[in-house]
């Protein structure tokens, strides 16, 4: 179940070669950071929590039994660390509404003519417009290509809940990114 490369690097780290952990960090840092960022919505916080997640993963590497993918195990740590940070944050800022509705006017322009940088901006904006957990599920499902079962393991949500959230988020994204999707469809068909 564990990727062969991952298995080799994990064993090397367990044997005392700490530098081998660099390979695992480089391989998974984008997705770990993405998961944290979807929940926390602030780069500094997300980076801090992503570092914490990697530190936890390193310290508890002996506990990784290999009955799931290393990535699933790592994303579970990242997800839970980020969720606990939001809980602390909520306690700190009781009067602030945590869910920031970024796309308040819901005005996504037709994206056909936009340059790659601008397209990226609107895709990010569309994902940020989703609920935090929906954003994580969409990221894991479409970008990391995790299965529903893996998402269930990471988020500890029920299968029905994951499916409903995925359907809802997909519908919202399709509506917000209609122009860009039409362009992509033209290139597919």
């Amino acid at each position, binding site marked *: 179940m564990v990727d062969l490369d991952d298995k080799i690097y994990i064993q090397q*780290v*367990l044997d*005392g070669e*700490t*530098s081998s*952990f*660099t390979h695992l*960090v*480089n391989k998974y*840092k*984008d*997705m770990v*950071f*993405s998961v944290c*960022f*979807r929940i926390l919505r602030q780069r500094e916080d*997300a*980076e801090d929590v*992503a*570092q914490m997640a*990697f*530190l936890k993963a*390193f*310290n*508890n*590497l*002996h*506990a990784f039994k290999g009955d799931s993918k290393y990535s699933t195990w790592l994303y579970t740590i990242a997800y839970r660390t980020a969720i606990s940070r939001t809980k602390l944050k909520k306690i700190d800022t009781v009067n602030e509404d945590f869910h920031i509705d970024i796309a308040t006017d819901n005005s996504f322009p037709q994206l056909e003519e936009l340059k*790659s940088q601008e*397209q*990226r901006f609107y*895709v*990010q904006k569309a*994902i940020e417009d989703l609920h935090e957990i929906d954003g994580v599920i*969409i*990221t894991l499902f*479409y*970008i990391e290509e995790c299965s529903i079962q893996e998402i269930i393991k990471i988020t500890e949500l029920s299968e029905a809940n994951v499916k409903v959230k995925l359907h809802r988020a*997909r519908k919202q*994204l*399709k509506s917000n*990114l209609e122009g*860009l*999707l039409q362009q*992509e*469809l033209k290139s*597919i*068909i």
Partner: protein
Amino acid sequence: MEEKKHILKKGGLEAGAGFTSKLMEQINAEETALSNVLSKHGAEQPSVDFTAQLMSQLEGKTPKVPYTPVISKRTWIGIAAAFIGVFILTMFSGGEASGRLNPETLQTVKDTVSGFFSNGSLFTYLILGALLLSLALFLDQGAYRKTES
């Protein structure tokens, strides 16, 4: 169902051949488009020095070895169960009718307990117990250090 289909066909409302496959093709294409767009633009990246910062925190460290006691919880439960079992068997063995407490055994237990508390042997047993506990802990810690090294 067939009747409904017949009525729709008569009224010229039947879906054309390949309707389902065309619909599914459209749905799949939409899914692929969304997947492509998100893969291209959806991932976030941490700062450039993310790995360096993290690795500097891990310098000279090794993953923590989990503490595993020599005598596991299950073994302790087994020992306790065996002890209770032997105690119960001793209490009920030798009685005239099965299931009844043997008066002689009960008397012996009473004598032992009263002796335990009367002639200062409690202190001896406490010392003995503490010694055994220390020995168990020492063995446990020794094994942990061995695993860690």
